[in-house]
Structures are given as structure tokens and as C-alpha cells.
């Protein structure tokens, strides 16, 4: 593009150009517009097909009597709010809500604090740093079904290796009923989920730490900011964007955790580890009441959206600052 061309392209606004030239120019602009649209279309179609359709379908299903019969007859009569009433009035629902909150909070706090400490630890250079850091990614590489089966064996009350070890060390005198007591099972499941979430937190926080320029620490050190002081006044403020992403994704991932609960307790003992996600799964794929399952997952989507909005607002404020 030459300078003259840029100049002429600006002229049509003030002085009307000869007709043929304008049509050629507007034709090329239309082509340009079309090109832009065409480039967006595949992504838009993918979003509509992979995200839009399932979400809309799920919302609609929440208002339908969508059961086994629907698959054969294609009929799913609308039933208003009765699916929502059915799931919310179930005695287990309030328990599932409380458990979901405790599970999410406990998992996020545990994962984040441990992930942060490990990230800070690995940020220093020492021999075998890379090898050790890679080892911490192992939980991520293990298929969740294998992981939960292994944990079920580890947490077994009588012969599980955790209780045996703790007993031999003299930490406990009677075996801890990790998965068999309603008071302890949720804690056990949170522990396993923390173990699973550490690699995610560690990796993201570690990469965030690496983005903080060393000069900041050098300058800070000259002003007397070292150790904790350096963390609070240099590391933490610079890490805020990463932290908010980690926490937001962590909350959304944790809200929908299903596999490890299915693998460890199936919501038992006595519904002690029921969560909204598990309720949704069981209603849909065990009881085949897909309408009720959809209603529960819609509730879960709304809760996730609330956190997404909080994140976006916090992020915007940060950008404004």
C-alpha cells in the first residue's frame, strides 16, 4: 500500500468520486467484508454446534418430561417447572448443595495453597528441579478411573495402606473410616481432589511466577523487600491475573467433578458425598430421568456463570486500573 492510495481512500467522504471508481472500490470493500465474515463462520458454526446447541437443548430438556420413552417415541411433553420442583424438593438436594459448597471450597483452598507453595519452591533453582516438577504432574497423567480405584484401595479402612502406615507410625490408634463414615467421607474425597488439582495449580502459578521480571526483585531487594515482604509487594500483585484465572477455572472444574466421587463412594455412605453434579448424573444415566438431570445441571450452569461473571468483573476492574 502506497501513501497516495491511503490518501485517496480517505477522500470519498468529502468529495464524491466518479461513479465507476466508487463502484469498484465499494465492490472490493464488500469482498473484504465477505472475507472477514467467511473467516469467522467456521468458528461460529463450531460454537453453535458444540456449545450453543447442547446448552439450549439442556435448558429446554429441563422443562420436559424427558425419559426412556422419549428415545423411542421422540415425544417429550413440556411439564413447566415440575422437574425443578422434583429435584429441589428432594431431601438429598439441600445436602448436595452444602456438600458441593464444602467440596469446592475445601478443594480450591487446598489445591491453591499447596500449588502456590510448590510453585514458589520450584521457582528457586536447585538440582533435579525439573525432574521433581515433572513428578508432580503425575496425577494429571493418570486416568481418573485408575486414580480413583487406586485411592479406594489406599483409603480402605482395614487393609488400606494409609491406615496401616498411620497406625505403624503411631499417629492413630484405631483405623480411620475414610470412605465408610458419613462424617469423614467428604473430607477424604476433598483430599483426593486436592491431590488431583495440585498439578493444574502448580503449572499455571509456576508459569505466572516466571513472567515476573527478576529486575523487580533486584530493585525490591535494594529497597529492603526480601522474603515475605517481596512476596506480598512484588509476587502477589504481579500474579493477580494468573491467580484469578486459576481460581475461576478451579471453581468451575471442581463444581462439575463427578468421576472421583463415582469411583470412591458413589455418593455414599448414606448420601454423605452427594453433590449437585453427581445427582445430575444419577438422575440422567442411572434413573434415566433426563429432564430432572438437565434441571440439576442447569442449576449447576447458573452457579458456574455467577463465578464467571465475578471473574470477568474483577478482570475488568484490573484492566481499568
Amino acid at each position, binding site marked *: 500500500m502506497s501513501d497516495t492510495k491511503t490518501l485517496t481512500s480517505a477522500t470519498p467522504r468529502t468529495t464524491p468520486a466518479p461513479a465507476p471508481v466508487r463502484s469498484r472500490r465499494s465492490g472490493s470493500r464488500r469482498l*473484504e467484508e465477505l472475507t472477514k465474515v*467467511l473467516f469467522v463462520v467456521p468458528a461460529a458454526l463450531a460454537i453453535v454446534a458444540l456449545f450453543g446447541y447442547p446448552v439450549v437443548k439442556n435448558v429446554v430438556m429441563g422443562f420436559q418430561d424427558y425419559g426412556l420413552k422419549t428415545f423411542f417415541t*421422540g415425544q417429550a411433553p413440556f411439564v413447566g417447572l415440575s422437574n425443578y420442583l422434583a429435584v429441589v424438593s428432594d431431601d438429598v438436594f439441600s445436602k448436595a448443595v452444602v456438600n458441593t459448597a464444602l467440596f469446592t471450597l475445601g478443594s480450591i483452598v487446598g489445591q491453591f495453597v499447596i500449588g502456590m507453595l510448590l510453585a514458589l519452591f520450584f521457582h528457586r533453582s536447585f538440582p533435579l528441579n525439573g525432574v521433581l516438577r515433572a513428578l508432580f504432574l503425575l496425577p494429571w497423567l493418570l486416568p481418573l478411573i485408575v486414580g480413583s480405584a487406586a485411592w479406594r484401595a489406599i483409603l480402605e*479402612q482395614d487393609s488400606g495402606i494409609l491406615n496401616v502406615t498411620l497406625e505403624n507410625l503411631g499417629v492413630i490408634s484405631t483405623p480411620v473410616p475414610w470412605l465408610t463414615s458419613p462424617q469423614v467421607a467428604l473430607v477424604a474425597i476433598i483430599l483426593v481432589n486436592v491431590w488431583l488439582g495440585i498439578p493444574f495449580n502448580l503449572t499455571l502459578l509456576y508459569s505466572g511466577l516466571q513472567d515476573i521480571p527478576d529486575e523487580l526483585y533486584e530493585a525490591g531487594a535494594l529497597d529492603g523487600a526480601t522474603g515475605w515482604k517481596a512476596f506480598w509487594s512484588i509476587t502477589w500483585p504481579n500474579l493477580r491475573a494468573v491467580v484469578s484465572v486459576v481460581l475461576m477455572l478451579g471453581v468451575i472444574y471442581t463444581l462439575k467433578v463427578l468421576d472421583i466421587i463415582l469411583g470412591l463412594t458413589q455418593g455414599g455412605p448414606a448420601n454423605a458425598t452427594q453433590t449437585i453434579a453427581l445427582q445430575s448424573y444419577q438422575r440422567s444415566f442411572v434413573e434415566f430421568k433426563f429432564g430432572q438431570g438437565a434441571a440439576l445441571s442447569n442449576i449447576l450452569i447458573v452457579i458456574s456463570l455467577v463465578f464467571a461473571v465475578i471473574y470477568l468483573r474483577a478482570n475488568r476492574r484490573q484492566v481499568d486500573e
Partner: protein
Amino acid sequence: MITKRLAAIAALATLAPLTLAACGGSTSGSAGGSSSATVDSLKVLDYYTDEPGKTQIGDMLTACGTSIGVPKIDREVVPGPTLIQKVLQQASSKSLPDVLMLDNPDIQQIADTGALAPLGDYGITADGYAPGPVAAATSGGKLYGLQPGANTIAIFYRKDVLAKAGVKPPTTWAELRTDAKKLTVGKQYGFAFNATADYEGAWQFLPPMWSNGGDETDLKSPQVAGALQLWKDLVDDGSASKSVVNWKQSDVNDQFIAGNAAMMLNGPWQEPALDKANVDYGVVPFPVDQAGQTSVAPLGGEAWTVPMTGDQARMSKAAELVRCMNSDANQLLRAKQGGLVPTKLALASQFKQEVPAMAGFTDAVAGARARTGKLGATWPDTAKIIYTGVQLVLTGQAAPADAMAKAGA
């Protein structure tokens, strides 16, 4: 200008696969719609994923296919827990198999959706069958499935361990409690069962519940509470691990093999694993509370059904295949291969003579009760209440008398 045009073409090109894919999707729906007089293949779906059963069933299907003039059986085998989901997918894409295997408690639910053809339309009846399998496969007075072999659960015991302790296999609940207590030594529990928060946990509670006169239509009855009390006593005595609330039947079997349990409640499908581990075991029916009661066991096993595919020629061949899979010879063969009991009552005595080891199960199956016999398609709702009630009792959250009410009965 040329670059812009090229860019537009490039953008169009990226769209092409999407539109092509869309076209491809619309044509596949019509498969299987063609109706021809000769049927040269039948589609079969089942969940026998484990060997040797997988091959044995496959061979039997092929042999039956040949005998009815269908040279090719297109068989698909999916894991048990995903079978119904698979059927639902196939139903919505109009690609149901010609012959479908269903676990007996699922038949009525699927039949009620209109997906299955009544076998009476093809002249198939269940005359001479044990009442349990017929009840499970009947909905609205019509028969929808034929089950060649049945199983149930009973008490497995380690012969050597019981002999050493001078204990005989229990015939009453009191004996079960005292035996189990006597057999609890060190790491070894006297008894193991499954009380998980799923349908398996409900199924394992049925022997004590039914044998005690309890009924799924009245879960708040004292008879049901009595059965809950037995489960509670066994755990409170320390004769069964508190972990039973988290042990599936396969875990229970592992504990038994590992020597952590002297007796267990389990089914004959565990026998290959027990034999492989060289466990010296015996089997007796689940005991009763008081003399005079009869031990009632829940019916297990799968039936063959004919889905409504709309192709009459294929459906009538499919019905012939179902009939062949249930022939006297095949019932006996399948029973011997798969640790099952033939469902035709006339075959039972012959079977008992040929396989004396299965005598305990043969009697139990003749009187075995179908889970869906009384409640039909609503059985899963009740099963959920049952396993929740059992878990409430075993974790000390409720007393046996009001556990079922608390669980939603």
C-alpha cells in the same frame, strides 16, 4: 486484490468440510429400512464382555444363526453399565439391533417404552419356565423376553476355615451371627456382603428382606426392619467389616479370596475367579430367621428380546434366534458354561444330576423372585430407597425401624 480473492477462497474452502459433513449425516438414517424376504444377517447386542462367556455366547449365536438359515450374525458387545445408554442412542438413531440382550430387571422398563416386540406375535410362550424369569419379562400381560439361564446370590464359605473352627454353614440368622463371630479372627472377618449406594447394594439386601417376609411394596414393615437389624448386627458384632458400605460384589469376592472373609454373599459368576485362586469353597442358600420360613433369592440373569426395528422379515428371524438360544440343549449348555441354572423347570432335575455342585443354586432359582415382579418399571425408585435405607442403618444414621421412612419410603 488477488490476495483478497485468494483469502476469500481460502475461507470458503475451510467451510467445505463442514457442509460436506452435514450432507454425510443426513443420508445415514435410511440404513436398515429395506425389507427383503431373505434375511442374510442379524444384528445382535449384548454385554458379555468377559471371556470365556464372550466366545461361548458368540459360538451359540452363530450356531443358532446357521440352524435358522441366517449365515451371518453381526454381534456387538458393550460393557454392562453402558448397555442401556447404547440402546437409547440406537433407538434415537433408528438403528436398534435385531436381537437385544437385556438384564432381567430392565426388560419391563424398556418394554414399556414400546421398543420391544411381544414374543407372542411370533408364537413364543414361556410355558414350563420358572415363574421368576417369566414375571421379569412380562409387562401388561405380554411376554417380551426369554431368559435361558438364571442365577442368584447365596452364601459362599471356605470349607477349610469352617472345618478348622468346627463351624457348619449357617441355616438360620442366629447361626449366621454366631458362626460369623466365631470365624472372626485377626484380619479375617466372619462374613462379607455388599451394601453399596447402588442397585447392587439393594440386590444384596433382598435375600434377608424377602426370606423374612418383607416386601418391596411395604418397606416400613417390621419384617424389613428385621432384615436391616441382621445387617446391622453383623457389622456391630464386628463380624463384618464397616467397609461393606463401600464394597461392591467384586470387592467382596476379592476379600474372600484374600482370606479376609470366611463367608460371603455372592453369585455363581464369581466361581471362575475363585477356582483360579484355588479357593476350596462351598455354597448354601441364604439362611432364614426362623425355622419354617423359606429362603427367597432374587432372580439374576439376562434375557433375549426382539426390538421393534420395523422390518417384519428380520423381526421374525430374530424371534427364531431367541427361540433357538432358549432350546433345551442350549439352556443346558449355557447353564454349564456360565454357572447358571436352566429356567425351564423340566430341565432342572437333569441339570442337578449332571452338575451336583450347582444343586444349591438350582433350588434357589426355581423359587427365585424377580425384582420387577411386583413393581415393574418403578422398581429402580424402590431400589434407591432400599440401598439408602441400608446405608443409613449401617452408618448409624437411622435405626432399622425408621430407616426406610427416612430414606423416602
